[in-house]
């Protein structure tokens, strides 16, 4: 039998997957630049190591939980593709190899857990973080990915549009971030002590890598090298540019200055908001989504000071709020002319799609919020979730990783070589 393999589509999906992988170090740098110099390495490590753990889980049973045969609309059969053993066979009827999709979706899972880390910078026990990430991936991310994207998943079957993960990735991670920030508590000294970003050039570099990778995230979600992917590509940069400009305008009027951090944050807010909607709106619709997301997120990052939760790097203000904006605006701005072929309220489609979008968005938000809070409370009550406040003040990098991010002096700290593998660091 002749192979149905479409090499163009397969090449694009594999390329897009690698682009999404680049978002993980991009996110690490984006976050790492925003923390203080004494905790940059821990932030890089939280993002990167969460990805290591989730990639392994994905191979073992995560893919199967997300995309295995549906059980009751809630979960994929977790043993169907156990270890991915059965997916190696070259299926002549597949236009896209199963493993290409497995790999592409693996990167989404690996990135999503890392997003949460920004809410609990500078103070979280490393082992507890990895344990949380693993449990949250299993109980929350894999099932939610099934609900939203898998045939048979209840949100998918309801007709909710989440093209590339505004709900499954960003609302999901943002809600978990809110729960975690509240359970773990504020950093020592927050909000009175100034906690200035240690390196805004890293933040902008990270935002740039995220933007590049996001074309894989969004346009790759077409799972084909086709017209839909191309429309998505254009919508993705249009919304992003609009959001960054909107964020800067808000800053200029409110604070008197357009800032670099605002530009980098606006980029991410725009990308988050267009993610669910990128195949449902026109390029002008994308610009509208970008403007609303950029302006609203620029305001939302201030809520934590009023409400008193230390979401350190604004995962809630950017990812939860931006995800909600994009997911809900599909209900207004979707147009039949776009690849998903649905009309929203402003295009004569009535409120039906808006209602579906709201159900999907808020169901995922509350599920993630509640389950994340329960997991976090159990960890807090058993093994503890925070490093000691002494370690936090002197810096989590030294306490947890026995490293410093920067060595800028010539005096080498006045120390000496003390041998190999003798646990000589730490000053005990």
């Amino acid at each position: 039998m002749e192979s149905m393999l479409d090499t163009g589509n397969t090449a694009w999906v594999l390329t897009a997957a690698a682009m999404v992988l680049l978002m993980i170090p991009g996110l690490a740098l984006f976050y790492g630049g925003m923390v203080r110099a004494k905790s940059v390495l821990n932030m890089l490590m939280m993002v990167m190591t969460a990805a290591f753990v989730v990639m392994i889980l994905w191979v073992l049973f995560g893919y199967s939980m997300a995309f295995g045969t549906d059980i009751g609309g809630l979960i994929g059969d977790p043993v169907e593709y156990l270890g991915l053993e059965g997916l190696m066979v070259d299926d002549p009827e597949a236009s896209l190899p199963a493993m290409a999709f497995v790999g592409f979706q693996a990167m989404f899972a690996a990135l999503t857990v890392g997003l949460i880390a920004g809410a609990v910078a500078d103070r979280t026990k490393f082992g507890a973080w990895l344990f949380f990430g693993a449990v949250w991936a299993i109980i929350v991310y894999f099932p939610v990915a099934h609900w939203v994207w898998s045939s048979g998943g209840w949100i998918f079957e309801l007709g909710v549009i989440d093209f590339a993960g505004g709900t499954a990735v960003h609302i999901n991670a943002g809600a978990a971030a809110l729960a975690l920030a509240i359970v773990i508590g504020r950093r020592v000294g927050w909000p009175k002590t100034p906690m200035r970003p240690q390196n805004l050039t890293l933040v902008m570099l990270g935002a740039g890598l995220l933007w590049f990778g996001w074309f894989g995230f969004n346009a790759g979600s077409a799972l084909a090298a086709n017209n839909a992917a191309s429309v998505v590509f254009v919508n993705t940069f249009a919304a992003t540019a609009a959001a960054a400009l909107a964020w800067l305008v808000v800053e200029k009027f409110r604070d008197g200055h357009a800032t670099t951090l605002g530009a980098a944050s606006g980029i991410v807010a725009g990308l988050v908001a267009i993610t669910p909607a990128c195949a449902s709106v026109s390029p002008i619709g994308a610009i509208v989504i970008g403007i609303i997301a950029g302006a609203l997120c620029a305001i939302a990052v201030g809520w934590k000071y009023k409400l008193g939760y230390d979401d350190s790097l604004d995962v809630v203000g950017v990812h939860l709020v931006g995800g909600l904006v994009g997911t809900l605006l599909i209900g207004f701005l979707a147009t039949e002319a776009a690849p998903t072929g649905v009309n929203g309220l402003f295009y004569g489609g009535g409120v039906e799609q808006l209602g579906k979008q709201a159900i999907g968005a808020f169901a995922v938000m509350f599920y993630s919020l509640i389950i994340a809070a329960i997991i976090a409370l159990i960890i807090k009550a058993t093994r503890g979730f925070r490093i000691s406040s002494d370690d936090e003040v002197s810096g989590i990098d030294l306490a947890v990783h026995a490293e410093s991010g920067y060595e800028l002096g010539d005096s080498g700290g006045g120390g000496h070589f003390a041998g190999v593998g003798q646990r000589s660091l730490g000053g005990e």
Partner: protein
Amino acid sequence: MKLVTAIIKPFKLEDVKSALESKGIHGLTVTEASGFGRQRGHTEVYRGAEYTVDLVPKVRIEVVVEDSDTEAVVEAIVNAARTGKIGDGKVWVVPIESVVRVRTGESGPDAL
């Protein structure tokens, strides 16, 4: 001998260094410092959160001189560092008991 310490605006370092060299001073020590006097710091804003930064970057110059040179050196520093605006800095003088040149072991004024 005297230790002359001057806190000045960083961009005035080159002028002060030239002025001291013209007075025959062969060496000095420069440290980046921060602090405040009448001049206060500035405000920075990150995602709408305003932080006041009270400490202003300054440069500290330390130079050891013979007693007879003290007045001329202080005057050279003050003249070279002055802009007439708030935040120009301070200069103070304290007595020094002894100085040793590490390389040769010379001490006293010979070590300067």
